């Protein structure tokens, strides 16, 4: 398990990560447009900051945009 090792060795990252995870779990996933767009913004930022490579960016972007299309199509159907 990730936390067991990291807490002794690492700075404090593991713990923050855990706090983050807990609050994430409280929120629903994959529902609304706003959240997906936010995900895309995060991804763009990671790319801008050279945290991920171009192929990785492209792959994730496609996945997010497909989901965004799906959600907006569903919404249009409802109207």
């Amino acid at each position, binding site marked *: *398990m990730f*936390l*067991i090792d990291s*807490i*002794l060795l690492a*700075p*404090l*990252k593991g*713990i*923050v*990560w*855990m*706090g*983050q995870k*807990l609050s994430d779990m409280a929120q629903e996933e994959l529902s609304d447009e706003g959240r997906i*767009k*936010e995900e*895309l*913004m*995060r991804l*763009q*930022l990671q*790319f*801008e*900051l050279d945290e991920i490579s171009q192929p990785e*960016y492209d792959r994730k*972007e496609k996945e997010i*945009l497909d989901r*965004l*299309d799906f959600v907006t199509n569903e919404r249009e159907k409802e109207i």
Partner: protein
Amino acid sequence: METATKEGKYIYCVIDSNQPQSFGPLGIGGRGDQLHTICFNDISAVVSDAPMKKYRVSRENSLAHEMAIEKVMTEYTALPVRFATVAEDQEKVRRILTREYDKFREMLNDVRGKVELGLKAMFQENAVYKDILERYGNIRLLKEKLAQCTPEKSHYERVQVGKMVEEALQTEKEIVKADILSVLEPLAAEVKINDTYGELMIVNAAFFVEKKREADFDQQIQKLDDKYAGKARFKYVGSLPPFNFVSIRINTEDY
């Protein structure tokens, strides 16, 4: 299955020029469509031929949109039009210009001579956590104590420390953010603070700055970068189209 997509005019921006002219094959979609003007009075829309379809907000499309406007901005004052605005034909674009002329004119006057500058500041991961451990005695003590317990027995405390670190990080961010803004805000005509992403980002802001103060602004950023060397890093992008301060939303169905 596939039906032919109708061709329309993708609108990038509105500029204060009445010259019929072309800005190169920079149209969205990678077909090499020419960017060109459609004029009314002393203003023009910069457009390219493009299919009337849904445009995904992919990096490729966003960049094409942005680069087209940047190209035009090297010569003219430009009002960016919202991404993926496509009108049926030239006549429709002209109708939009005609009907919104006064508004566009006023906005152009307002934007003239200013540039958008973007700044993101992020804590350096290792440095900031080390700093927090050094300066927040209660966190350090609790962490040392926890190091001697098994995770199973100290689950609650671990979450507790996590919360304390998040709070400390938040406090540190607020302090640095206030410092950065106190230096830069007075140099800008307008400031827009955007959402931050991830746990390390301190500030994500756009500044609308008079061109004559741009050098001064650059210098202040340089000073901040020196001041926070090793602690925070800055990502500074210059002379952008004023996306954060003007964005024309045109509902093409209304014209």
